[in-house]
C-alpha cells in the first residue's frame, strides 16, 4: 500500500527532493531509505491489530489547534543542576548549544548538512531495526522528514543530567528526532519536559554500548493535543537502560518503546505513571526483545483514570531462542476513579528459550475502600485520601527511577498536580 499524498505525513506531502533538500550525504541516505520504509509499510490503519485500542488517525489528521495552557512542568527540575537544552516551536533555541564534560551536543539541523557524522551509525538504523515484526511507519516518516533534534555523543560519565525543555506557542507540528550514543562504560541522564508542538512526533534513538548507562526521565504534562513518541534502543552487554515517563497532560499520547537487548547481562526498565482526566487517552506500547543471555527487563506501568479517560497498555516481551536465563517482568495496573473510565491491556509474552523466568501481571479496579476508610478515620478528608492512595498506587513505577533526587522531584510534581486538580 503506497502512502497517498493526503496522508503521507503528519504535515504535508513528501517529495524526494524535499526529503534530501540541504541534507548532507549521510542524512540524505538515511532519509531516502526511511521514506521507502514508510511507503512500503503504509500508514497505520484503525483495523491494525497493533492499533487495536488507539485510533491512529489522530496522528495524521490535518487540523490541530493548541488549547489554552493548563499547567506546566516548567521549573520541575530547577532544584537540580542540569545542562539545559531549549526547544522553541520545534527548533533548538540557543545559537550555540551548551557544552558538558564527556559529551558533545549538536543539533540535527546543523549536523545533517554535513556529509559525514557519527550519527550516521544510529540515525534511522535503530528505527529500521524496530520495524519488525510490527511496522511503525510513523517513526519511519519521522526519520524521513525530521529536521531538528538533539544529537548527543556521550564518551564518559556525564555528571549533570542533560535537560531538554521544549516550549511551543501556537498551532504547530513538531517532528523531532533525537540521537544518543553512549560509548562503552559511559553514562548519561536525559530529562525531557515541556511541549514540542501542538502535535508532536518524537523519535529517540539510543545506542548504549557495552557497560554504558542511559537514564531517561520524561514529563508529558503540557497542553499538546496529540503526542506520538518512539524510543528505539539498542542495549549492549552489561549495559543499563532506564526510561520513566510521567503523563498528566496531553489529550492523546502514544509512547512506544522498542528495545533490543543484544549483549549479555544487560538490564532495562521501562516505566510510566499517568493521571488521566476526561478526554485523555494514553497508550503505552512496549516491545522488548531479549537476544542475549542473562538479561533482565522490567515494565512497570500505572494508570490513574477518571471522568472517561482511557488508559492503554500493550507490552510484549520477546525472548529469542538462545536468550537463556532471561528475567522478564511486566506489570500494568489501573486505578479507575469512576465508572466512566476504561483500561485496555494486552500484556504479551512470546518465548523461545526454556531457561527463563518471565511473568506479567495486570489488574484493574477501584480505589481500595479499606485503605480509604483507614485514612479517613485518621481525619484525612476523602479527596486528600484519594490523592494519597493515588500516590501509593503509582509509587512502584516511580521507584523505577534510580536517582533518588529526581524521583523525589517527580513525586513532588505529582503531589502538586494532584492537589491542583
Amino acid at each position, binding site marked *: 500500500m503506497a502512502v497517498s499524498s493526503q496522508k503521507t505525513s503528519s504535515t504535508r506531502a513528501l517529495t524526494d527532493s524535499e526529503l534530501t533538500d540541504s541534507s548532507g550525504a549521510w542524512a540524505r541516505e538515511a532519509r531516502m531509505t526511511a521514506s521507502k520504509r514508510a511507503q512500503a509499510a503504509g500508514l497505520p490503519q484503525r483495523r491494525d491489530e497493533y492499533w487495536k485500542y488507539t485510533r491512529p488517525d489522530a496522528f495524521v489528521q490535518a487540523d490541530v489547534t493548541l488549547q489554552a495552557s493548563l499547567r506546566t512542568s516548567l521549573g520541575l527540575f530547577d532544584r537540580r543542576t542540569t545542562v539545559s537544552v531549549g526547544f522553541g516551536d520545534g527548533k533548538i533555541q540557543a545559537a550555540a548549544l551548551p557544552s558538558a564534560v564527556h559529551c558533545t551536543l549538536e543539533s540535527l539541523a546543523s549536523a545533517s548538512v554535513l556529509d559525514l557524522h557519527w550519527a550516521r551509525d544510529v540515525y534511522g538504523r535503530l528505527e529500521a531495526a524496530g520495524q519488525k515484526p510490527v511496522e511503525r511507519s510513523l517513526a519511519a516518516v519521522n526519520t524521513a522528514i525530521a529536521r531538528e533534534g538533539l544529537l548527543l555523543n556521550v564518551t564518559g560519565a556525564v555528571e549533570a543530567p542533560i535537560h531538554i525543555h521544549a516550549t511551543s506557542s501556537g498551532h504547530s507540528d513538531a517532528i523531532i528526532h533525537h540521537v544518543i550514543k553512549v560509548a562503552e562504560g559511559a553514562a548519561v541522564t536525559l530529562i525531557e519536559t515541556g511541549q514540542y508542538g501542538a502535535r508532536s512526533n518524537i523519535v529517540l534513538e539510543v545506542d548504549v554500548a557495552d557497560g554504558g548507562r542511559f537514564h531517561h526521565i520524561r514529563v508529558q504534562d503540557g497542553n499538546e493535543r496529540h503526542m506520538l513518541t518512539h524510543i528505539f534502543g539498542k542495549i549492549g552487554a552489561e549495559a543499563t537502560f532506564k526510561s520513566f515517563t510521567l503523563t498528566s497532560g496531553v489529550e492523546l499520547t502514544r509512547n512506544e518503546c522498542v528495545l533490543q537487548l543484544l549483549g549479555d547481562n544487560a538490564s532495562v526498565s521501562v516505566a510510566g505513571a499517568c493521571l488521566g482526566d476526561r478526554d485523555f487517552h494514553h497508550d503505552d506500547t512496549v516491545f522488548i526483545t531479549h537476544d542475549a543471555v542473562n538479561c533482565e527487563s522490567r515494565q512497570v506501568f500505572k494508570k490513574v483514570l477518571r471522568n472517561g479517560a482511557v488508559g492503554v497498555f500493550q507490552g510484549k516481551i520477546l525472548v529469542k531462542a538462545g536468550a537463556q536465563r532471561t528475567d522478564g517482568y511486566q506489570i500494568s495496573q*489501573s486505578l479507575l476513579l469512576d465508572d466512566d473510565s476504561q483500561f485496555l491491556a494486552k500484556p504479551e509474552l512470546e518465548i523461545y528459550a526454556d531457561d527463563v523466568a518471565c511473568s506479567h501481571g495486570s489488574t*484493574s479496579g477501584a480505589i481500595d475502600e479499606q485503605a480509604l476508610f483507614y485514612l479517613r478515620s485518621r481525619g484525612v478528608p476523602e479527596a486528600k485520601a484519594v490523592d494519597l492512595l493515588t500516590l501509593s498506587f503509582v509509587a512502584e513505577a516511580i521507584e523505577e527511577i534510580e536517582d533518588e533526587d529526581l524521583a523525589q522531584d517527580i513525586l513532588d510534581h505529582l503531589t502538586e498536580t494532584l492537589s491542583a486538580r
Partner: protein
Amino acid sequence: MAMDDIQVKDGVDAETVEAVKALSGTYKYGWNTEIEMEYAPKGLSEDIVRLISSKNDEPEWMLDWRLAAYRRWLELIEPDWAMVDYPTIDFQDQYYYARPKSMEEKPKSLDEVDPKLLETYKKLGIPLKEQALLAGVEAPEGERRVAVDAVFDSVSVGTTFKAELRKAGVIFCSISEAIREHPELVRKYLGSVVPVSDNYYATLNSAVFSDGSFVYIPPGVRCPMELSTYFRINAENTGQFERTLIIADKDSYVSYLEGCTAPQRDVAQLHAAVVELVLLDDAEIKYSTVQNWFPGDENGKGGIYNFVTKRADCRGDRSKVMWTQVETGSAVTWKYPSCVLRGDDSQGEFYSIAIANNMQQADTGTKMVHLGKNTKSRIVSKGISAGKAQNTYRGLVSMHPKAKNSRNYTQCDSLLIGDKCGAHTVPYIEVKNNSSRVEHEATTSKVDDDQLFYCRSRGMDEEEAVALVVNGFCKEVLQALPMEFAMEAQALVAISLEGSVG
C-alpha cells in the same frame, strides 16, 4: 466410591508414574477400523449441503439455515491471527460427508450395533463400566452412571440409558434426531450462541455439520448421570464437523464429558466443531474435554487440524458454566471455549491444560465476556511446550460498562521443556467500569531443575520425573475434571511428553 477414585484426587502424582509405565509405546490409538464407508464426493457446494441435509432427513427450514451459512461462508476469509502455521487447506479437497455403510439403516437397539464399532470403543479405552453400559448391562446399584452417545465419524450409532433419561425428562440424542424430533427446541437455540456468521470455521460447520449431540435438561432437573460422547475421526480425508447443543433450562444441572481420539494417518485432517451451551436462570453445566487426536508424527506429518468454536451463553441469572479441557492432541489446535456472562450473578470458569510436543501447535484460551452485574469468572490455564512445539494462550476478559461489581481472576502459566519450543501468552483485558476487579497473572518458566533432581535422586528416570513434575504443575486443572476423566488425563499428560527429554 471406590478407593481408586479417591486416590485420583489425592495421589495424582504417584499414579502418574504407574501410568507412564503402563502406557508406554507410541501413539496408543493409532489404528484404523475397517468399516465400509459411504462417501459423498469431495468438495463443497450447495449440492453437498443439500445432500447432507437430505441424508439426515432434515426439514426445509434446516436446509435453508445450512444454505444461508454456506453462502455466508463463501464471503469469509480464513483467519490468520493465531500463532499457528500450517499448509493452506484446500477446502474443495475434503470430504464433507461420510458414514459407515452398515449404518444406513439405523439400529433399533444396541444389539444391532455393528460389533466392530463396539470393538472400536474397547480399543479406544472406554472404561469397562461404560462398555458394559454400551452392551446394555445394568450397572450395580449406587454406581456412578455414564450415558454415552457415541459418534462414529458422522452418524450417531447408539445411545444408552435413554429410558432412564427420558424418565427424568432429559433429552440426550444426536442432533440429527433432535432436528426431527424436537424442532421447536433446535430452532429456538441452534445458532443462538454461536451465530451462523460468527467465524470462518463456525460458519463452515453451520453449513455442513453432519451430526453431533443434543441435550435438553428440563427446569429443576439434575441430570441423573454424566453424559458422555466419544467420537473419533475414522475415515481418510474426512472433515469432521460436529455440532453440539446443550440447553440447561431453569435450575437444572448437567455434567457433560467429551473425549476424542483419532487413528494415525498421513494426510492432514480437518476438524471444525461447534459447541453451543445455553443456560437459563440458576442452571449449571460442567463441560469437560479430553482431546487426544493424532498430533502427527515427530515431524508433524499427518496430524489433525482442530478448529473449534465453543461458547456458553449464561443468559439466565445465577447460571454457572465450567469448561475444563485437557488438550494433548492435534497438529494444530485453534480453540477458545468462551463464556458470555449475560445474566446477573452468573459465573464462568475455564480450566485448561494444553500440551504441545514435537511439531504440535496449539493456540487456545478463553473469552470471558461480562455483561451482567455481579458476574464472576475464573481462568486457570496451564500450557506445556516440548520438542519443537508452539503453545499459545490467547484470552479475553471484558468487563462491559453495565457489568458492575464483577470479578475476574486469571492465572496463566507456561512451562517449557527443552530449548527448541515456544510458549506464548496473549491476553486481552478490557475494563469499562470501576466497580469490577480484574486480576491477571502469568508466568513462564522451565521445568524446575531442583524438582527434577529430587525425583531422580529417588530413583525415577528423567521422563518419569518430568511427567511427575508436569502433573504437579497441572494439578489444579486435573482436579477440576470429573473422576472418569482424571485418570485418563493424567496418563495422557505423561504420554504426550514422551520423547521430550533426554
